[in-house]
C-alpha cells in the first residue's frame, strides 16, 4: 500500500485545481469505494487524496417538480427527503435497498454515481487480466466465475457491472449531472454521463481528471405517476442486485399515458430502456404489453454461462414492477 498525502482544501475551485494539477491525485468523499480500492483491495494508489467532504456541496434544494441534490448529500439523507418520498418514491426505495444503513450514512450521491464495479477480478490485484485496470490485459471474468456481472453493454473485453441501485431510477428520471472543472462548469445528462466499455473499459464516464461532480438535478414525477423499484437478489437484504428494475407509469383509463423504465444488475452502466418505454406508450396496461416491453428492452446481450439466467430474469423483473406500479396484474 503506497503512502499518500492528505489535503483538505477550503473551496471547490481549490480542490479542483489541486487534482487537476496532479495526475496522481484523487478526490475523497464518503470513502466507501475509494478507500476500499486503495487500502483494502490495493488496486489504485493515488499519491494525494483531496478530501472534499467539508466543501459546501451538501443538501437538497428545489420544489415538487425538480430538486438539486448536492454531491455530498448522503444516501440516507436523500432517502429521507420529503420531496423524494412524495414525488419520486422509487428513488427512496432504491436507496434503502442498497448497502446497509452504516454505508448509506457515509456514501454520498456523487460517490454513488461514480462507484466502481464490484467485479472481483477487477478488485483483486492478483488477477492480471483486467482491461478495466490495464487496457489490453484481457478479461478474467469472461472465462471466470461471473454471476454478479453485466449482460447489457458488455462484451468480451469487459462484463463489469455498474452495481448502483439509485442510479437506476435516476436514469429513468433524466437526471442531469452538474460538473465543475478547472475550465468552468458544465451539465451532462446522466444518460450521456456514462460510457460503454468498448475497447476502453478503464474509461467509465465523461468526467475529466480534476473535474468534480457538484450536484445532480432530478426532475421529479408528475402527480398521477406511480413509481417503484424491484430488486432481485439471493438474500433478502444487503446484497447487490442480480437484476433490478425501476419503473414509473401513468395509467389513464387503462392505457399507459407515460412511462419511464431503467434496469439494474444487468448493465455495464445503469441501463435506460427506451424501447420498452416506446412499446408501452398508448398500450393497454397488462401483462401482455409488459412482457412485450421486456422483450423490446433486452437485446444485444452478451452472456457467459454464469450470467445467462439474467436474460430471462430481468424481463420478469421488469414485468413484475410494471404490474406493481400499474396495479394491473392480469
Amino acid at each position, binding site marked *: *500500500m503506497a503512502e499518500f498525502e492528505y489535503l483538505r482544501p477550503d473551496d471547490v475551485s481549490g480542490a479542483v485545481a489541486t487534482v487537476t494539477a496532479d495526475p496522481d491525485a484523487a478526490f475523497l468523499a464518503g470513502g466507501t469505494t475509494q478507500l476500499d480500492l486503495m487500502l483494502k483491495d490495493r488496486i489504485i494508489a493515488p499519491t494525494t487524496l483531496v478530501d472534499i467532504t467539508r466543501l459546501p456541496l451538501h443538501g437538497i434544494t428545489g420544489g415538487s417538480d425538480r430538486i438539486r441534490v448536492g454531491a455530498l448529500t448522503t444516501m440516507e439523507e436523500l432517502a429521507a427527503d420529503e420531496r423524494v418520498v412524495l414525488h419520486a418514491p422509487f428513488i427512496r426505495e432504491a436507496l434503502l435497498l442498497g448497502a446497509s444503513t452504516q454505508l448509506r450514512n457515509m456514501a454520498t450521491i456523487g460517490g454513488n454515481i461514480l462507484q466502481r464495479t464490484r467485479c472481483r477480478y477487477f478488485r483483486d490485484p*492478483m488477477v492480471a487480466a483486467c482491461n478495466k485496470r490495464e487496457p489490453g490485459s484481457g478479461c*478474467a471474468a469472461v472465462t471466470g*466465475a461471473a454471476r454478479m456481472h453485466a449482460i447489457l453493454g458488455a462484451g468480451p473485453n469487459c462484463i463489469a457491472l455498474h452495481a448502483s441501485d439509485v442510479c437506476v431510477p435516476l436514469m429513468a428520471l433524466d437526471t442531469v449531472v452538474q460538473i465543475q472543472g478547472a475550465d468552468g462548469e458544465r451539465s451532462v445528462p446522466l444518460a450521456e454521463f456514462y460510457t460503454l466499455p468498448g475497447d476502453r473499459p478503464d474509461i467509465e464516464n465523461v468526467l475529466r481528471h480534476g473535474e468534480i461532480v457538484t450536484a445532480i438535478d432530478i426532475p421529479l414525477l408528475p402527480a398521477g405517476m406511480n413509481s417503484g423499484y424491484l430488486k432481485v437478489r439471493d438474500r433478502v437484504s444487503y446484497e447487490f442486485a442480480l437484476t433490478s428494475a425501476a419503473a414509473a407509469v401513468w395509467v389513464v383509463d387503462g392505457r399507459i399515458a407515460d412511462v419511464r423504465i431503467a434496469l439494474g444488475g444487468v448493465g455495464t452502466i445503469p441501463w435506460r430502456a427506451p424501447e420498452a418505454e416506446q412499446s408501452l406508450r398508448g398500450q393497454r396496461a397488462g401483462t401482455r404489453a409488459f412482457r412485450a416491453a421486456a422483450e423490446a428492452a433486452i437485446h444485444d446481450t452478451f452472456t457467459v454461462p454464469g450470467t445467462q439466467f439474467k436474460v430471462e430474469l430481468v424481463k420478469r423483473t421488469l414485468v*413484475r414492477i410494471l404490474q406493481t406500479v400499474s396495479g394491473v396484474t392480469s
Partner: protein
Amino acid sequence: MTATINDRLLGQPFDRLDGVLKATGAAPYPSDVSIPGQAHAVLLQSPIGAGRIRAIDSTAAEAAPGVVAVITHLNSPALGEAPMTGLGGPPRNPFTDDRVLHYGQNVAVVVAERREQAMAAALLVDVDYEVSAPILDMDDPRAAVENNAWGLETHDGDVEAALAGAQVTYDGTFRIAPETNNPIGLFTTVAEWDGDRLTIHDSTQWPMMVRASLAAVFGVPEAGVRVLVPYLGGGFGNGLRTWPHTILTALAARMLGRPVKLTLTRPQMFTSLGHRAQSRQRLRLGVGGDGRMLAMDHDATASLAAEETNFSAIVIGSPEAYATPNVATHDRQVRLNIPNPSFMRAPGHAEANFAIESALDELSYQLGIDPVELRLINHADVHPRSGLPWSSNALRECLTVGAEQFGWNDRNPEPQSMRDGNKLIGYGMAGVTFGWYAAPCTATITMDSAGSVIVRAAATDIGTGTYTVAAQLTADLLGLSMDDVTVKIGDSDLPPAPQSGGSGLAVALAAAVQSGAAKLIEALIDAVGDSSPLRGKTVDEVVAENGGLRLRDDADAGETFREILGRHGLDHLTAEGTSDLAAAAKNAKMATAPAFAARFVEITIDEDLGLLRVKRLLSVVDGGRLLNAKTARSQIIGGAVMGIGMAMFEDTIYDQDTGRIANATFGDYLVPVNADVPDLDVVFVGEPDRFSPTGVKGLGEVGVVGVAAAIANAVYHATGRRMRSLPITIDQLM
C-alpha cells in the same frame, strides 16, 4: 458414587455469564491482544494454484521502512512434525520446500514495526513461480483418490441382493458446494518467546492441541508452551487444527526474539484455515412396499487437499440413521490443489443427511406414505448395527411433536398445490441423527474458606456457553449460588480438556465437573470433625445445599463449607475430576445415543422470480438433559441459520485456471443476514441420557443438520422440482 444433580440451577435459562463482557466490548479476543514491543507479521500468499517457487527476491521488501524480517522457505529453520490428534493428522508444515500446492499457500512472512509497513513491504517481495496446471475438478482423471482412509466403511448384510429384491428402489446423486466457515472473528496469533518458553494467544478451539503441536514443531518442552484463548470470535471447526499461520507467527517471534502479532485478512480466512469439503454422494435405497428400508448403499466422495490428511468422511453417520438391515458405505476423497478442507459444523453428517433425507422425501411420494410416517416406520428402536438399546432416543417424539406443533397435517401434500398470489408455498421436513464425540477431560474444583469455588479446565467457550453451563452445573452439584462459582478456561496451563468440537465438550466437561464435585464432597467429609453428623458418611448419604453439606435423610444435620474449612484452617481445598466417555462406552452394554432432531420448514418461492424465502422453521431436538435452556436454544437457532446458508447461499468458488477463490469476501461469499431469518422455533424433548453421566448430549452441531434437506424437500413440495445440489439458487428456481 456421584454428586447429585439437583435440577435447582441446572437447565435454568440463566443469562450468559460472559454476556456483559461481550455486550460492552470488554471481552478480550486474540485480535485484541497487544504485547509491548510486538512486531506485526503479514502473509504473502501464492497467486498460483500449483507449481514451484524458482526464486524469491526480498531485497526491496527488506529495505522498506520498518521491515524487520522477510521469512521464506529459503531462510527458515527446519520444523518438527506436529503429532497426530484425536481428530486426525496435522496440516502440512509451512515452508517445507519450494512447491506450491494451492492458491493462497503461504510463501513469505513479512514482519515490520507496524502492520501497514508489513503490508506495503509484502507487495515488494518478488517471487518467481514455475506454474503448473492445478487439479481442481473432482472428476479430473489426474486427481489421486483415497479410499476408506479412516477404515470406517460399513459392509453389513448383502446390500446388492437386498436392492435387487426390493419392491421400490431409489438411486440419486447429490452435490454440495464447498463452504467456508467464516467466523466473524479474524483468526489471530500473538506469540512471545522467553528462551524455550512460548506464550501464545491463538484463535483456537483446542488449546491443548495447539500446545502439543507447537512444542513438537519447535522442539521445546510442552510444559513451557502456554496457549491462551479466553474468547474466540467463532470457529465452527476452524479452530481444530494448528494452522500454518500460527506456526509462522511463532517462528517469526522465535527468529526475531521479540513478540509478533498476525491477524488473517478476510480473504485469507478462505485460504489459511479449513472449510467444508466439496462433496458428491450417490445414495441407493431399497424399500419394501410397506416403506421399510431394506438396503442402503451410500457412496460419498469429498475433496481433499493435495498433501493433507483431513479426510472428510461424509458417510460417518449413515449406518445408524435408520433401521436398515443391509448397509454399505463407501468413503472416498479426491486430492485437489485447493486449501485444506477440514471441519465445518457437523462435518459429514450435514452433507449425508441432505442425501438421506431428500431420498426419503422422494420415496414418500413414490410410496404414497407421509414423510413423517415413513421416518417413523424406519425408526431404529435399537442401534441398527449393534442391536444394543439406545442410551436415550426421543426421535419418535421429535417427529410427532414436530408434526403436531407445525401443523404438518394441515398441508396439502400434493406438489404445487399451495400458493399465496405469486408465491408457491412448500412444507418440508427432515429427521436428524447426530453422533457427538467426547474425548477425555479433566477439571479441578477449588473451594476457598468462604465456600466459593473456582472451576478450572483447559477448555474453551467458542460461543456455546461453556463458562455459563460449567458454573451452573458446579453450583447445582455443590449447593452454591451462581455468584459463588468462577470458571477459568481458555488456557492450556489449566487441567487438560479436549476441544470444543464434535459436540462433545459439554458432555465431557460436565462429566469431569460432576466427578470433581463428588471428590470435593468426599474431601470435605474427610475434613469434618469427629462430632460432625457428616463424619464417616459417603457422598451418596449427603446433600449439598445452601453452601454446605447435610445428611440426605436429616435436613438439620449438616455443616456449612465455611465451617468445615474454617475448623481446619484450610484456605482452600481442591479436587480433580475426570471423564473418559469414549473408554466408558466400550463397556456400556448400550449404544451411546446421538442427539436426535426433526426439522419442519415452510418456504415460499416467487414463481416468476425464483426467490426462495424461509417463512417458518421448527426444530424439535432430543439433546438429553439441558444444561441451560437459553444457551441450548441459541445453539439450535445458530445451527439452523448456518443450515439456511448451506441450503440457499454458500458456495466457495474456485477459478478453474488458478484455483483462486473467486468470492473470498463477505460481499461475494453470501452468508445469511438478519432479514433472511424468521423467528425460529425450538422445542426440546427427551430425557437425560442414560450413558452420559450428567445425562447431557452434545448440541453444538445438531442444529445445522437437516435444515438443507427440509428446505430442499419444501422446494419440491412447492414446485414439484427436486433439488439435489446445494446451494439452491434463483437461477435454478426461476
